């Protein structure tokens, strides 16, 4: 039965397997001290590799069946996996192994159990686990999702502290309800927050363009939906900082029009002053007041800002004359704008103050050697700017360290372009043809893990949302 164990680390899998073998041999006689001491493992099948927990804490989803929780558990487990912040440990065999029997509680874990766990939950919710056992499995956290009437209860156990870290109760919409998946994603994010003190990115969406239309999709690849409301060709969707609306460009009568559209209602309004020229690459300021964009005229392409709250105050930030300036992206403090300029002959990444002053080179390059650089996006934590650069005739994703002004190349397989940051500033979605056709992929910069977001050809120009916070009623 232990062959079905799926660990994210081969080493861990081996140890889990080995440990389960010894556990099943000894049965209930296994003692706490044995489990906490890794030497206990050595008493079973001796394996040469000892797994080190490393940087990522282990998390186990407690097996539960029935009660309509399967889809919720599946979504949450995948969200936790896609967060790339945990080693998600899947237990073998589900309930048949009875790893999570409350009746195991009295087995000599009393002193530890009365600690932080009960205080965190006021005692009433205390659901006891065989913490030493999970610790030996390599788990730092255990997440238990149960149902109490119409309320879904997520309980996060802190294995090392042998107690409950946090309990979240939430009334989820029914499966099939349009809000169901996002509500479950928010639950997963609360679990990440409870475990690590950092919010997750499960409740986020990605806008992208396919066949001239704007679509949205959940970060886990589910719920793809058309959001364009016309047949005209659209480009360059960009999220507002509150996640409730977005801007995009639409070809219309030979011009480029900028529109703002509400996510919830689909209602859209043209940006005032648009329609007279080719306006493109819109970008919101973090406070949502200002829209920066590129405008192509007889003089070339230059950057402008307009106040979209009051529909006023069009302001020109660059005067290129013989060069083009485009693709603005605000720093998260709203003080600076990174952008593309062709002033060195080829497009490269520049930066300026948000009022257009103090323009200077941002991402270093070797004149005559480095290829074109385009599509910058400032990370939400302000520390990096992702962009793509022509390397040997194809495009690769790079990241600029804002403080040191050094760049590093992230990708090398196939053509990779148009990176967009997740709100955690460690994941990027981008377009890649590494699988043979252009589609959206997601990379985790910390682990280097890459996963496809879509299995469809032709998706491009992705824009990752901020955290979408239509908070459900929760009781911490």
């Amino acid at each position: 039965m232990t062959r079905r164990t799926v660990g994210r680390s081969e080493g861990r899998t081996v140890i889990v397997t080995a440990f389960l073998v010894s556990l099943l041999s000894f049965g209930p006689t296994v003692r706490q001290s044995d489990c906490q001491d890794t030497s206990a493992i050595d008493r079973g099948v001796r394996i040469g590799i000892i797994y080190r927990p490393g940087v990522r804490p282990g998390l186990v989803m407690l097996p539960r069946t029935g009660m309509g929780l399967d889809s919720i558990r599946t979504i949450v487990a995948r969200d936790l996996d896609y967060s790339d912040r945990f080693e998600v440990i899947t237990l073998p065999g589900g309930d048949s192994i009875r790893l999570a029997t409350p009746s195991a509680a009295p087995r000599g874990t009393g002193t530890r159990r009365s600690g932080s766990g009960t205080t965190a939950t006021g005692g009433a919710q205390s659901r006891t686990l065989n913490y030493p056992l999970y610790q030996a499995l390599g788990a730092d956290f255990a997440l238990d999702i149960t149902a109490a009437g119409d309320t879904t209860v997520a309980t996060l156990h802190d294995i090392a502290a042998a107690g409950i870290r946090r309990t979240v109760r939430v009334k989820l919409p029914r499966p099939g309800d349009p809000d169901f998946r996002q509500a479950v994603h928010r639950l997963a994010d609360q679990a990440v927050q409870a475990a690590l003190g950092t919010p997750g990115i499960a409740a986020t969406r990605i806008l992208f363009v396919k066949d001239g239309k704007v679509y949205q999709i959940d970060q886990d690849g589910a719920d793809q939906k058309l959001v364009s409301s016309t047949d005209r060709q659209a480009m360059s969707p960009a999220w507002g900082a509150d996640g409730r609306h977005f801007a995009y460009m639409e070809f219309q009568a030979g011009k480029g029009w900028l529109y703002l559209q509400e996510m919830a209602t689909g209602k859209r309004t043209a940006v005032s002053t648009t329609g007279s020229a080719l306006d493109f690459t819109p970008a919101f300021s973090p406070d949502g007041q200002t829209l920066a964009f590129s405008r192509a005229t007889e003089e070339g392409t230059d950057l402008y800002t307009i106040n979209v709250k009051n529909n006023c105050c069009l302001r020109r930030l660059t005067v290129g004359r013989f060069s083009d300036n485009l693709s603005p992206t605000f720093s998260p403090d709203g003080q600076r704008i990174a952008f593309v300029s062709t002033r060195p002959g080829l497009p490269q990444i520049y930066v300026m103050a948000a009022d257009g002053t103090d323009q200077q080179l941002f991402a270093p390059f070797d004149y005559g050697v480095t290829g074109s650089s385009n599509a910058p996006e400032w990370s939400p934590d302000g520390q990096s700017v992702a962009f793509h650069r022509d390397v040997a005739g194809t495009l690769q994703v790079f990241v600029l360290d804002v403080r040191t002004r050094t760049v590093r190349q992230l990708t090398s397989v196939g053509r990779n372009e148009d990176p967009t940051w997740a709100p955690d500033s460690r994941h990027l979605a981008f377009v890649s043809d590494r699988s043979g056709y252009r589609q959206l992929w997601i990379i985790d910069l910390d682990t280097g893990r890459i996963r496809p977001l879509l299995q469809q050809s032709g998706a491009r120009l992705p824009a990752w949302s901020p955290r979408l916070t239509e908070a459900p009623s929760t009781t911490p």
Partner: protein
Amino acid sequence: MKSVSLLLALGLGAAVIAAASCGGNPPPQTPTPAIDTAAENQRVRDSIAAAEAERARQAQAEAERIAAQRRADSLAALARAGEEVRTTLAAMIHFDLDKSNIRADDMGVLDQKVAILQANPELKIRIGGHCDERGSDEYNLALGNRRAQSAKQYLVSHGIDASRIETQSWGEERPLVDGHDENAWSQNRRDEFEVTSGGDNIRRP
């Protein structure tokens, strides 16, 4: 009795001879009666007249056909001239990779457009700049704009009023040729020219 039989024999013999001589020399043909000759002459005359009438009719029809053809030909020639002018006006120009300068081999194409625009002062056009798929999607909007502006600048510098020329950029959004090789790319890096007004009675320069 003997003499009767001889006579009979002679008579039979003569009859046989007479019969034989009749078969060998047929009687001469009787001459055609006079009434038949006149009818035949009339028939021939009628036939000649009919043929002449038919020829006249055919000549008339042919003349009409030729006249109609001439009219059609001259109309077609007029249309062809307009069509030729239109085709010359719509002829695309092409660009090198990531470049927006007018190539030397395209200057003649633009010079012809200058002549047409000068011969048709009411004519207004739109220039659309396009790019291949290799560059960055959004940067290509700026590059396509540069390409459209380059052609406009050329026309304006050769005496065409700038107000007669609109420009737009499609970036890489409207490829002319599908394909992912240099052949397709080189055809897609282009300016397109279209008449926006004043194109009803287009004149040769």
